[in-house]
């Protein structure tokens, strides 16, 4: 059995003048989930199209289940399941007819295909709608049927391109359960998503793609620690002009201040007594503290830090307003801008310790 089920090196893809992929390296061990995270248009779907033989790379190579995606496309197709972003079901056929068709095209015998279709319809709670045309299915039902169609031939490698986009929260959690079950049964899975919590909850490793390049690569916890250790959030009763100065000696890098001046966020080098030190420092300048929170960074912090377009502003080290906080009443300013980039911590400046592409990271930042 192949140990590395998905492998790629130097994958690029050009569409006319657009560089959709600018050099991607991947390596996914058997039985694990790789989360591919990135904003719209980052190149996630292009990467999936190449890996699933639907597009040819401009340069570079990729192997899935040990077979080259260009030279041995047929072998790759026998070993993969794909759930694309757009539904690929036949609207005029019933759910059952769709599954049986895919089963037979995948090489199952007629009777096997019929049994498998019934099994999957039941497993994905579609039995009641099995013999109705897909045209009348809800979005969630289509997603489930699409995933079922990808699983018909029990492929060892599965590609899910934004599998939960547009699903309601309950359906999403159910989809997660299915994904976990698949991996527990030995499937290797590549999952693209725009949702950080999804990557956090499911993926063994995450690559962050932006502008066709991998800008970070690691386990969820490695990525979080790379962004700058621990996050500090302070809420003041009233804005205070001395607050930023008071925090400066305690934080690593810049302090983000909300528009109303009451909420301050920064990275800290977590040590014993950091919260006490923060409260004392603020008290010393006369700032009244409502709340202090010290917590590990979320993947959102990682994502914004890595993909923020206003990265140059961050280098000045000046306090900036933070318009990304939805609870922030004064957040109207710069609504069109992405969240203010997080401060460059020493860890960031030297490149992510876990990243395999430090030069690319520096370029992106």
């Amino acid at each position, binding site marked *: 059995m192949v140990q590395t089920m998905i492998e790629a090196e130097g994958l690029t893809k050009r569409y006319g003048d657009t560089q959709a992929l600018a050099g991607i390296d991947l390596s996914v061990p058997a039985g694990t989930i790789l989360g591919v995270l990135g904003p719209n248009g980052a190149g996630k779907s292009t990467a999936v199209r190449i890996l699933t033989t*639907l597009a040819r790379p401009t340069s570079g190579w990729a192997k899935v289940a040990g077979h080259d995606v260009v030279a041995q496309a047929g072998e790759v197709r026998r070993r993969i399941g794909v759930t694309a972003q757009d539904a690929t*079901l*036949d*609207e005029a056929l019933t759910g059952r007819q769709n599954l049986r068709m895919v089963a037979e095209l995948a*090489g199952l015998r007629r009777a096997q295909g019929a049994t498998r279709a019934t099994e999957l319809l039941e*497993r994905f709670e579609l039995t009641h709608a099995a013999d109705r045309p897909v045209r009348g299915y809800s979005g969630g039902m289509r997603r489930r049927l699409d995933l079922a169609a990808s699983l018909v*031939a029990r492929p060892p490698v599965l590609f899910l391109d934004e599998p939960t986009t547009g699903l309601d929260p309950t359906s999403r959690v159910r989809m997660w359960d299915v994904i976990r*079950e698949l991996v527990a049964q*030995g499937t290797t899975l590549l999952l693209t998503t725009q949702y950080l919590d999804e990557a956090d909850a499911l993926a063994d490793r995450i690559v962050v793609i932006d502008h066709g390049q991998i800008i970070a690569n690691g386990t969820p916890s490695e990525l979080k620690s790379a962004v700058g250790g621990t996050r500090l959030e302070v809420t003041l009763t009233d804005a205070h002009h001395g607050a930023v100065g008071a925090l400066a000696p305690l934080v690593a890098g810049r302090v983000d201040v909300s528009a109303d001046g009451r909420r301050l966020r920064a990275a800290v080098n977590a040590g014993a007594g950091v919260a006490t030190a923060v409260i004392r420092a603020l008290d010393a300048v006369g700032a009244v503290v409502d709340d202090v929170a010290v917590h590990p960074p979320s993947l959102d912090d990682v994502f914004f830090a890595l993909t923020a377009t206003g990265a140059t502003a961050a280098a000045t080290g000046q306090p900036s307003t933070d318009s990304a906080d939805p609870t922030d009443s004064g957040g109207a300013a710069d609504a069109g801008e992405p969240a203010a980039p997080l401060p460059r911590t020493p860890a960031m400046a030297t490149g992510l310790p876990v990243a395999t592409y430090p030069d690319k990271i520096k370029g992106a930042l």
Partner: protein
Amino acid sequence: MTQLAPALDAAPGLPARSGTFSRPFRDVAVLTRRNLIHIAREPLQLSDVLIQPVLFTLLFIYVLGSGVSLAGGSYKDFAVAGLVVLNLTTSVMGTAVGLTTDLNTGTIDRFRALPIWRAAVLVSRSVADILSAVLCTTMVLLTGLVIGWRPHTSVPEFIAGFAIPLLFSYALIWATACLGMVTEGPESAQGIGLVILFPLAIVSNAMVPTSGMPAFVRTIADWNPVSAVAAAMRQLFGNPNPSAAAHAWPMQHPIAAAILWSVAILAVTAPLAVHLYRRRTTD
């Protein structure tokens, strides 16, 4: 509980492929069934091969044909063969429309990520469409029989007269498949198809003898494959065939010409359609 994935200890769930030889046939059969389900789901799609042939036959014979005088037989006896070719030629547009519709949905991506024969999508389309063409031909001939048209030859000749337009139709299906591959959407496929197929059907001996046409138009009409097919049918059915008097080679040998034209069109357009399909679906 349903096992979704391959079990860890078992070999990866590779489906057993029953013989590589039968594989293209299976893929075509499965996809043809899909196309037939589409038709069954929306039977009005068949109006161009069920209702239109009857309508055209009655309109041409009783309205337009009333003004055509023909030496050596009635217009009705002359027109039925031409109506078969006319209806087949115009209804073949459905191929281009169906293919572009397919190409513009995600379903094609699903097929392409499956281990199927690359040409299966096109071949299955052509199979479904030739079945429609059989219906279309049958409807014209049945309508003809009802209003008094008769073949006057043996059963083998009648069968040959039935088969030749279908062979030609199959060639046209592949030609329009090429058209479907290069047009953006179903609407443009329909529009461009009409511009090509309508003159092809009309500038011929299908509905009127070519003898009255201006010399230049007459030359085109005598060499038009549609004329060869119509003349071949008239010869095989024992119906009036004024084109037999024309000097052009295809009119002197309509059966050979009809077959040669069809085979030539097929030999060029079938590989071209597969090539265009690959190009269109590879990015």
